[in-house]
């Protein structure tokens, strides 16, 4: 199961036949394992990994990391407030953190103004939010295990090995 998952994570376009060959399982076994992972929500969907640096440069989007301190609610803890935040489509990631602040939000907007507006009007005004600190992202080097740099070339030369 884990091996199939890792193969798909690396290349979601591998066919069940290829995966079956590579893992020495039957095609039916592989198909069933994939179906089970889809059913159980282990695999959510198959998408393309995009070099966001290139796309953002064209679309001129800006990203910001926002640190939020909150007052946890009785019974709900941080979850209810987190849900109110992650429902905004501008919010790309949301983590509950240990340390100096509570929630880390990564948001995307078209302009600096967009982001500033979203933080001051939408996030800062939420019940339970004590403070926000906004950091704009200047450049992304690596994200979700993907390095956003061009030029991966096979440099191996002919040699007597």
């Amino acid at each position, binding site marked *: 199961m884990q091996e199939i998952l890792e193969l798909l994570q690396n290349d979601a376009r591998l066919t069940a036949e*290829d995966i079956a060959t590579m893992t020495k399982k039957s095609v039916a076994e592989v198909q069933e394992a994939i179906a089970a992972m889809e059913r159980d929500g282990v695999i959510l969907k198959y998408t393309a990994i995009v070099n966001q640096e290139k796309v953002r440069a064209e679309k001129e989007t800006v990203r910001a990391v926002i640190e939020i301190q909150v007052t946890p609610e009785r019974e709900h803890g941080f979850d209810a407030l987190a849900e109110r935040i992650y429902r905004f489509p501008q919010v790309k990631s949301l983590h509950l953190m240990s340390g100096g602040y509570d929630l880390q939000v990564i948001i995307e907007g078209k302009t600096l103004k967009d982001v500033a507006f979203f933080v001051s009007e939408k996030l800062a005004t939420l019940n339970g939010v004590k403070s926000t600190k906004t950091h704009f992202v200047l450049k992304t080097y690596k994200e979700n295990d993907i390095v956003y740099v061009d030029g991966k070339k096979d440099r191996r030369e002919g*040699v007597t090995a």
Partner: protein
Amino acid sequence: MLKTPPSPIRKFFDLIIGRDDIISLGVGEPDFPTPWVMREEAYYHLEQGHTSYTSNWGLTELREGIARYLAKFDLDYDPKKEILVTIGVSEAIDAVLRAILNPGDEVIVCEPCYVSYQPLVELCDTKLVRLDTMPTGFIPTAAAIERLITPKTKAIMFCSPSNPTGRMIPADELAKIAEVVKKHQIWVLSDEVYCELVYDGHKHVSIGSFPGMKDYSIILNGFSKAFAMTGWRIGYFACPADLMSEVHKLHQYSTICAPIMSQYAALEGLRSGADEVERMRLSYQQRRNLMIHAFKEMGLPVNEPEGAFYVFPDIRKTGLSSEAFATKLINEYKVAVVPGNAFGSGAEGFIRCCYATEIGKLKEALRRIKLMVEGKPYDGA
């Protein structure tokens, strides 16, 4: 030296230099860069100005690390007197052969084998005795070895898992070979550089681990393959202290020591590289399965290699010699493989394909080989 031919692999690689349109299954080299923890360790030591020679033996911590590593295979060597760090396994083979051989000695080399064995043996003015392992599925057997032993036999050499066939000598056969070696009191040079790259739950067994075998064994190993460190040129060997003190002299006069940055990087690999090695191993296993499946579908017989990163299919049914096959494949179908005859006797009619190449390229290369086997023209540019 004039009698020694250049490596036959070289000829094929000269054809592909600078050609992006050719997919190479030729070079026996990982397609992964050295794991970052190891590269970073070398940076650190460069930064600190650790750029000196090391002891001729290699760094003490590295030899201690190697001793602990060898213990995994039930090998017990004293890092102070029985382990020497060398410039790749290649230097180790050369130095050991020069130390143990006298003119007129005979050395049994199990073929097909890595291209350096035969010339290095012959450069010692000794008689190369070829053991063709093709009839036994490319696995040398104790019986076949014993038939070639004469009073002049000084040593036997093999590599398991093997370059170029990927086959591993099973433990029960190794046990029998060990008995032959002890009976005739000859050295065994055991090249174990692929010992980490074994598949389907196979376990590497070292001939040096059998009872009483330490006195006859020279265990050769290195970091190039499993740790993806080919360009660092770092290997080692282990043998009894008496012999070691002789080989040590050769090593000290010819190379002084292995590069210090490579030694630090290798040490870090032993400390914290196991997960990365396993990740690479699994990836090779998956690609091996893809290769075997494809060759079987083409109708080319192929042994299932237990280790290394090569498959060695039998191309005789195409009616071509291995050299003609490889030449046609590279010229017309733009795929480079190494013809079997490069590796010695018994390998004519076979080709070596290294599958340490990205899956997309592997599949395309296999598709092109299939076109050629089916007599169809190449459909690409």
